[in-house]
């Protein structure tokens, strides 16, 4: 080789080494700058407004006896409360969920009105919302899903890796992405509201669809691509919401068909307890487990809100708290039983806000007064539980003093998945909850 050729080739090789991006096994071009602590995070918003009085302070006995250790005595079968025999067995056997991680007993929803929707926005965006809310619009600031999809890998991070599973419709479908410039639907999470979707009406609407052969599919694609090409200049990309690739869409349709078939053949949640045990919260837990099993997403958020019946019925609020507690432990047990998720998942549990210290004027059939959530100090008190592998999260650890805010969950998730340092400064004012790290 001539000297000139050698220098030229050596130079090109060196340039290639510098310029060529490293292609990760996952198909990502660039890795996030930070180090991942785990590969999966599940954030369970134990929402609907739960007072610390009935959760960690256990003023009505231990209504969360699969998650929390007894403070003074266990579950008390008071009038109107669920019979002990009707409560399904602890999915964790003899253990309590808090043993698998850290319990933060005094966390604050420090600013903004204590409403469900802005409570959700705060948890998902890591920012308090004090402005007037348009209930049908996407959040103003990026959600944790968008941070994840944009910064945890490259911009092509699959939407199948991020899921938002809500127990209800209303404004909640809007929480899978924001209207913030540079983020938005292109980085949003897949959203599902299972109880509306996987139902008789859902099946009638979408469960009996025309099946195309592989060749027919190719033909439809050819025609559609031609049409889309002609319309590209006018197409409003935000109109389709979150976007999955053609292959991913096929996976999603297949998944929905599997869920319909599961429902037709008798969904397993029917075996979770006595008749009437499974409520909307537990249904949401069930379908979240289905998503986790199918896609093993890296970031999953679900909510439970049945306790919000507390506006009018405190007794049912307590009973729904018992069910929510069971559902959360079932979810953790499922994660630990699922290869690919076990010992590689951190689960965070937190109510979106609390409830007032003073009751409203409604009294239920058992003489118990009801409680709203109108931004008094009590409604700002919440707890959090962060569970994970022993080498990542402190086990059986309690922090009783004031520690953590609602806005800290988003940066903590970002840190756990190793992309917090890639988020532009100033967007996330909260802190990483490092005191729970092992």
């Amino acid at each position, binding site marked *: 080789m001539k000297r000139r050729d050698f220098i030229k080739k050596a130079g090109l090789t060196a340039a290639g080494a510098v310029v060529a991006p490293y292609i990760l096994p996952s198909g990502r071009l660039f890795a996030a700058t930070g180090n991942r602590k785990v590969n999966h995070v599940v954030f369970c918003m134990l929402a609907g407004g739960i007072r610390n009085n009935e959760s960690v302070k256990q003023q009505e006995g231990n209504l969360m006896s699969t998650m929390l250790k007894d403070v003074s005595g266990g579950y008390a079968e008071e009038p109107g409360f669920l019979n002990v025999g009707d409560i399904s067995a602890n999915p964790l056997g003899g253990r309590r969920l808090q043993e698998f991680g850290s319990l933060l007993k005094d966390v604050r929803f420090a600013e903004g009105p204590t409403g469900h929707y802005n409570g959700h926005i705060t948890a998902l965006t890591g920012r308090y919302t004090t402005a007037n809310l348009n209930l049908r619009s996407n959040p103003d600031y990026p959600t944790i899903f968008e941070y994840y999809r944009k910064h945890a890998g490259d911009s092509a991070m699959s939407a199948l890796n991020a899921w938002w599973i809500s127990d209800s419709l209303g404004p909640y479908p809007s929480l899978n992405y924001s209207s913030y410039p540079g983020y938005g639907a292109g980085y949003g999470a897949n*959203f*599902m509201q299972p109880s509306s979707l996987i139902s008789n009406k859902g099946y*009638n609407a979408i469960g009996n669809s025309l099946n195309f052969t592989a060749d027919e599919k190719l*033909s439809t694609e050819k025609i559609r691509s031609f049409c889309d090409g002609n319309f590209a200049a006018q197409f409003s990309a935000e109109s*389709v919401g979150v976007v999955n690739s053609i292959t991913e*869409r096929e996976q999603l349709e297949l998944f929905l068909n599997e869920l319909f078939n599961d429902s037709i053949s008798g969904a397993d949640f029917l075996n979770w307890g006595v008749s009437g045990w499974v409520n909307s919260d537990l249904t949401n837990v069930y379908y979240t487990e289905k998503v986790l099993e199918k896609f093993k997403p890296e970031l999953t958020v679900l909510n439970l809100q049945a306790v919000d019946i507390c506006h009018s019925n405190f007794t049912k609020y307590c009973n729904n708290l018992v069910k929510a507690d069971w559902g959360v432990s079932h979810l953790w047990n499922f994660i630990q039983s699922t290869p690919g998720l076990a010992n590689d998942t951190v689960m965070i549990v937190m109510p979106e806000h609390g409830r007032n210290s003073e009751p409203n004027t409604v009294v239920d059939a058992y003489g118990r007064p009801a409680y709203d959530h109108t931004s008094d100090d009590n409604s700002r008190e919440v707890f959090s539980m962060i569970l994970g592998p022993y080498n990542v999260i402190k086990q059986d650890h309690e922090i009783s003093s004031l520690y953590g805010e609602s806005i800290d969950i988003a940066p903590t998730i970002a840190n756990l998945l190793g992309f917090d340092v890639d988020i532009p400064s100033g967007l996330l004012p909260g802190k990483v909850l490092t005191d729970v790290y092992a």
Partner: protein
Amino acid sequence: MLVYKNNKSISLLLIIIVLFACSKDEKEYVYQIDEVEISQAGAEKPNVKTSTEYISIAYADVFGSNVPTNLLEDLKKIYESFGDKGVAEDLIIKNFLNDNSVQIPTNQEMEENISLFVTNAYKKVFNRAPNEAELWFLKDCIEKDSNISPEVVYYALMTSNEYRQF
């Protein structure tokens, strides 16, 4: 100056007279453009359909009647229950097309007059006639590809991006 102008006019007149004097009885050609209906593909559709609009219009396009109110409410719920609207629309349209009471042309009708089929499909689905390129493309596809049925065409058009807007 006036004299100069008059001379110029007279010269021009003489030239015209000479030209006409020399002309024979020749065939007269008139060159112009045939009348063609021109439409840009998907022109002027800046608005995104709401879920109600999307479902109502799709139902009317496939079944030729208004969607019953209770079905509309059910379908809206389904539409809103899934984040990827493409998936929701895909399943709704495929479900419509699998119904026995669907009102789209048969295979035989399509084969008999492909141009008419394509034109009618565009008018029904996109609310406009296809332009020449679109007509040629789809006609060519149908002629060359035996997999293409009316269902395939209607499904492809109704799940395209243009159908999402008006």
